[in-house]
């Protein structure tokens, strides 16, 4: 069969690049996804990688599709191994339809399915000037499967390598040409018949990391203090890189405790600050979150989840920090938790997080995960038109009281130096003016004032999204990054009785939730964790239990097939 199995593919193709850390797989991914997007193809890519800098075995899965896709599939159509062990690493995903393309000597000893073709990447590269051009060759070979404008690729190479001198540019272009030709030879002039759409060319190609960070800037973020921690570091890096351009104080600090306390200090002074971290970082920030709670100082926390406990699997994905984040920090105080289902949502929620924090003077936690932040795909745009940086700061009068008891519990927030008043913020229980008090009645009124916000903030709760028909019998319950995989699985199953209720705001929950849950005959909980944490949260809020659970906790995101199969067998059992 060989390459011929590919000609059946009409809707899309799944390409996996696999090799060692440090081999430059990400460069190939970058070239491929960008060149294809710019040629009018929908693209999606996601990574799974080890916690090391060189060696090991990592893979990037890329989908090129006629439809917009945003979820991983298990299926591999083309597998490009860059190192020994790569094919073996993916053996569970190799089927009789998988074509392994690459240097035979790399995978000759491993199980590689029925179809493999030898293209000597490094030899081609060597001929073009050296082995360092191997990635360029590989990218070019892959582009050879598609209808692409090669000139664009050459321009990219020129731009990318111009600083390294003409020779490097020329060699790269040479390598690209030869790679492309090698593929054309292999395919005998044929191309994959995946529909293109010119309008896609203008799409954005972005990652979750980027949309969170861009959202933050759009939310008026002008301060970030952080300590690096996978998978959250990208957001801090993005903000740091753009600090000068957008007027952001971006400071890497000594530890996460500093990060949160700085961010709270910055908000106190009127800045809009974010901290980006992972579960371990939030653990260290717990006391600071409690501080924000009593100070009624806004703060935005980006929690990019990875599998715990403790160091766990540092570069992998999980939705295992929901309940932890919900209760992080001692004492009772309100907070808001948002969790985007897609990278577009990551943008809007990240932006909104700043307004919500400012409006309600509470910590807002944005829950993403490694899968979401490390995934890329094309989206039409990120619209700024309707967005506002809603500032809720007032100019203070002389008799200003930071914790004035008001009807709805929200005390107008002043900042030091703006107005004639004094802004006194205290982590002890305090009176309206902010001074320490141990008065029992004042204590009660301050507790109630803080908790009352849970009532007031109802008006802004983002309702869960119903995917599928209103007339469902079986209702999938999901939150955060599992959105796209579930949605695609549902489309594949195409069952009218099956809908999904997807939560983007995971706390406080929308008051209509109970009603929606009660309408279902069967609730199917899908979560990327071991204990069904969101299910527990639903029970706690509405005394409603889910009937079935699909849980995954090996460190990887759900694939479409996985969910599809599990759902099918659940639905079958019913009949």
């Amino acid at each position, binding site marked *: 069969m060989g390459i011929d199995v590919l000609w059946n593919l009409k809707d899309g193709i799944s390409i996996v690049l696999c090799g060692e850390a440090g081999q430059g797989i990400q460069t190939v991914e970058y070239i491929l996804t960008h060149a294809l997007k710019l040629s009018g193809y929908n693209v999606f890519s996601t990574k799974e990688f080890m916690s090391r800098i060189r060696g090991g075995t990592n893979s990037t899965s890329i989908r090129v599709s006629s439809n917009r896709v945003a979820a991983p599939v298990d299926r591999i159509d083309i597998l490009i191994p860059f190192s020994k062990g790569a094919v073996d690493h993916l053996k569970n995903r190799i089927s009789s339809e998988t074509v392994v393309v690459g240097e035979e000597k790399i995978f000759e000893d491993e199980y590689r399915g029925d179809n493999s073709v030898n293209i000597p990447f490094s030899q081609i590269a060597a001929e073009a000037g050296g082995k360092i051009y191997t990635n360029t060759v590989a990218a070019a070979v892959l582009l050879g499967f598609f209808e692409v404008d090669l000139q664009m690729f050459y321009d990219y190479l020129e731009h990318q390598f111009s600083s390294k001198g003409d020779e490097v540019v020329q060699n790269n272009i040479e390598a690209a040409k030869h790679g492309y030709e090698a593929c054309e030879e292999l395919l005998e002039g044929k191309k994959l018949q995946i529909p293109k759409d010119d309008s896609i060319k203008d799409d954005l190609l972005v990652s979750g990391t980027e949309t969170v960070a861009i959202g933050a800037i759009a939310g008026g973020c002008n301060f970030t203090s952080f300590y690096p921690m996978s998978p959250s570091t990208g957001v801090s890096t993005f903000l740091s890189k753009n600090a000068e351009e957008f007027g952001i104080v971006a400071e890497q600090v000594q530890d996460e405790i*500093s*990060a949160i306390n700085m961010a709270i200090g910055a908000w106190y002074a009127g800045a809009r600050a974010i901290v980006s971290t992972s579960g371990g970082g939030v653990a260290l920030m717990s006391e600071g979150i409690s501080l924000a709670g009593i100070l009624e100082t806004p703060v935005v926390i980006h929690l990019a989840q990875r599998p715990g406990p403790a160091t766990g699997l540092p570069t992998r994905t999980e939705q295992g920090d929901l309940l932890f984040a919900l209760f992080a920090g001692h004492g009772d105080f309100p907070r808001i938790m948002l969790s985007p289902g897609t990278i577009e949502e990551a943008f809007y929620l990240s932006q909104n997080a700043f307004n919500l924090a400012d409006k309600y003077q509470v910590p807002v936690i944005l829950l993403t995960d490694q899968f979401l932040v490390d995934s890329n795909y094309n989206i039409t745009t990120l619209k700024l038109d309707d967005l506002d940086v809603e500032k809720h700061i007032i100019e203070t009068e002389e008799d200003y009281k930071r914790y004035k008891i008001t009807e709805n519990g929200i005390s107008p927030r002043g900042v030091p130096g703006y107005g004639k008043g004094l802004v006194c913020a205290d982590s002890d229980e305090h009176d309206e003016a902010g001074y320490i008090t141990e008065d029992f009645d004042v204590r009660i009124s301050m507790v109630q004032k803080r908790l009352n916000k849970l009532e007031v903030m109802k008006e802004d709760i983002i309702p869960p999204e119903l995917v599928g028909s209103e007339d469902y019998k079986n209702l999938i319950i999901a939150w955060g990054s599992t959105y796209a995989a579930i949605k695609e699985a549902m489309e594949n199953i195409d069952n009218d009785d099956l809908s999904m209720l997807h939560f983007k705001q995971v706390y406080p929950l929308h008051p209509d939730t109970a009603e929606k849950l009660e309408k279902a005959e069967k609730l199917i909980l899908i979560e990327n964790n071991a204990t069904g944490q969101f299910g527990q949260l639903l029970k706690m809020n509405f005394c409603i239990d889910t009937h079935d659970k699909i849980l995954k906790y090996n460190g990887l995101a759900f694939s479409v097939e996985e969910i599809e199969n599990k759902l099918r067998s659940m639905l079958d059992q019913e009949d």
Partner: protein
Amino acid sequence: MSSTKFDMGDIDIAWCPGCGNFVILNALKQALVDLEIKPENLVMVSGIGQAAKMPQYLKTNYFNGLHGRSLPPATAIKASNREIVVIVESGDGCSYGEGGNHFIHAIRRNPDITNLVHNNMVYGLTKGQASPTSQKGFETSIQVKGVFNEPLNPIALAISLDASFVARAFAGDVKQTRDIIKKAIEHRGYALVDIFQPCVSYNKVNTYEWFKNNTYYLEEDYDPTNKTEAFKRSLEMEKLPLGVFYINEKPFFEESLSVYDKYEMPLYDRTPDFDKLSELIDSKRGF
């Protein structure tokens, strides 16, 4: 002491009668008045402890945060609004124990803030346990056989990290303490003033008397710019020197922040440039 615009009027102060904190409060108020700092333009930042109650007793803005965590918010407040004078005030436990990591890294970062540490060599608020500066052999309800650990020498430590301004004062002497605090506030960059503060309730060893007998002021002609010399003097134990040990003028944190390159106004007064952001977003359409 004459009344100042920082006075709170007739309030209940939660310190013990005779506590050294009262003197520091006076010295600080005098320093602020002398420097013509406006209450609206000052933010006092503190941790938790007896010393950390200080901001409650001055009419000004304050941020009374977590135990040990005063320096990070202080750094951020200053970075968010350079027009504000930021003074951090806390105890020895708060600053050198729970807050030790912030202390060493604040020195490295060198924000333009003043750090007053009330060093009573004991945990006051939690009723008399040893602090990082408690002397060897100091007996407490917990250190029943006396303190074993080496006391932390904040002056030597700060100098070793090349801090920008390092001084020591003694709460028994309001005038000199005021003057040292003034110098610290005027200094641009991180300024540490470790202030010996008698705790009449829990430290019966390091009393006013003891401090008086065991300290002296650095000579008039002492040169605070010589690091090795400053270090040497910081190690003196027989009699503990008071005064400004070390001054090292260097760029301070806020000078490194590009946010103030083009605009002066504080961060609360800013909105993001949506045009530029659109450009950034659009750049994601290409390679």
